[in-house]
């Protein structure tokens, strides 16, 4: 900073500490709850220090299937698959279509661009019923395909790759052509290696996106074998008024939110890049 003002620096830290407390508080309470036994949480006497029951609670979450949900490990497996398929699918179809739109001139190119663009304007929330009907008619209810395919069309990923390809010098493609590389060889040998960081950053963002999906899996799965974690923990929480086992619920909630949170913390650079660039 330009000048040194100790009181301002102190104030800055104070603001940030309060901010961090606000941000951390709900998760801290959930963590604490997950370390106590079933009877620790009476009215308003929710403990604020960790207990010693974390391991027991985790074991119970992993071994006992709660009412209304599927086995935890199965839901975690489904969430993982869903996130991975959505991530891979979005990246593959977006990078291919961006490649076609930037490196070819063909009749219908602009139309294709606009069709992709339109997906931005039609979030799944506004076309719930007809999309559900399409998936049902295709016989994709209760399947990984039904869970993922309708979510993998992505204008933002296509735009990100398009923007990146436009910054790749024209001469690189010309040199590759002179060197005897056809379109797909150029794509594989030159463009794909150059896109590595962009792909990695997108992977981080899209994995989180896929992991967080809630409404869509809730619509297309009726078979508990296809429940995802987000649905599962909500279903577990929903029956809690009758059966206040908050310690177990919070253990499950913490475990369900852990994978994407760890990704953000440990891949912060890629995460920031992915988030900032997809929104450009």
């Amino acid at each position, binding site marked *: 900073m330009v000048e040194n003002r100790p009181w301002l620096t102190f104030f800055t830290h104070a603001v940030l500490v309060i901010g961090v407390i606000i941000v951390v508080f709900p998760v801290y309470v959930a963590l604490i709850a997950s370390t106590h036994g079933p009877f620790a949480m009476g009215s308003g006497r929710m403990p604020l220090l960790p207990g010693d029951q974390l391991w027991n609670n985790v074991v119970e979450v992993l071994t006992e299937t709660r009412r209304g949900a599927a086995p935890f490990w199965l839901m975690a497996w489904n969430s993982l698959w869903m996130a991975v398929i959505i991530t891979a699918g979005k990246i593959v179809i977006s990078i291919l279509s961006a490649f076609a739109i930037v490196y070819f001139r063909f009749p219908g190119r602009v139309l294709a661009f606009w069709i992709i663009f339109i997906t931005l304007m039609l979030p799944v929330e506004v076309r719930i*019923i007809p999309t559900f009907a399409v998936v049902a008619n295709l016989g994709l209810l209760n399947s990984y395909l039904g869970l993922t395919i309708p979510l993998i069309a992505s204008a933002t990923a296509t735009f990100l790759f398009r923007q990146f390809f436009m910054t790749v010098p024209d001469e690189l493609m010309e040199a590759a052509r002179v060197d005897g590389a056809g*379109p797909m060889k150029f794509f594989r040998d030159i463009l794909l290696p150059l896109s590595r960081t962009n792909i990695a950053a997108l992977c981080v963002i899209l994995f989180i996106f896929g992991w967080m999906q809630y409404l869509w899996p809730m619509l297309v799965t009726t078979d508990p074998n296809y429940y995802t974690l987000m649905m599962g923990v909500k279903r577990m*929480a929903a029956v809690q008024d009758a059966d206040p086992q908050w310690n177990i619920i919070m253990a499950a909630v913490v475990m369900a939110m852990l994978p994407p949170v760890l990704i953000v913390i440990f891949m912060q650079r890629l995460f920031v890049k992915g988030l900032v660039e997809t929104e450009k």
Partner: protein
Amino acid sequence: MDTKRTVFPSQGLPYLLVAPQIIITLIFFIWPAGQAVKSSFEREDPFGLATSFVGLSHYVRLFQDPAYLASIGRTAVFALAVTVISMGLALILAVAVNRLIRSATTYSTLLLWPYAVSPVVAGILWWFLFNSSTGILPYMLSFFGVDWNHQLNGTHAMILIIVAASWKQISYNFLFFLAGMQSVPQSLNEAAAIDGAGPFKRFWTIVFPLLSPTTFFLLIVNLNYTMFDTFGVIDATTTGGPNQATNILVYKVYTDGYIGLNLGSSSAQSVILMLFVIALTVIQFRYVERRVQY
């Protein structure tokens, strides 16, 4: 729309390349959206055997329905509150982090991770905190004479979803404000300091005006977020209640259509929301174009 200076000679290949994306978009986006528009003009008989064209009557009825009009009002309150709260807090935090050098990364990490908490989990967390029998916040509020009960009190329920939705969005806004501030050239700050402006004056006269593209961008994104992505928050906490008090537009589409099976009305609501997203997208892209030129 640009291509490269030279392009590959093309026969079928580019069509093959765009085909997966286009086919998925047509089947799962365009066609369902078309269906929604179509059925918003139709009425199905009780057995689902025949449909008849009813023109704008679903729309007319919607705008005469006090429940729908109330839902619009609640959505507006919710969207505005979440946008203002989450952007305000995020801006303060971003300004603070931007002042620091050594500890900036640590604070950033601590503030960024809630992005990875899904809306439905955010809902569950805050529901737990506000739960009237075990929650810690009602206990604390009772000392201030507040008898918290979001299961009966509509205002309390609204506050609950506003808090949960804002909490989750702080990280996102923080990140973009911070990125925006870091792109303000340090030399401008230094020049202003030489011109005798103190830190607060510098922020309001130099940094904040230069942040206006970021602020505007976040405004659009946050409106979009509160209108659509908060479905999980609401479904995990109030499910639209009590007595419709938190039944915002997107949740109403779901309850009327998927649960209530009122296809025509739900479709008309979908179409209205689509028009809203289209408007937001157009505004956003017109502005992005200008930003590119700038």
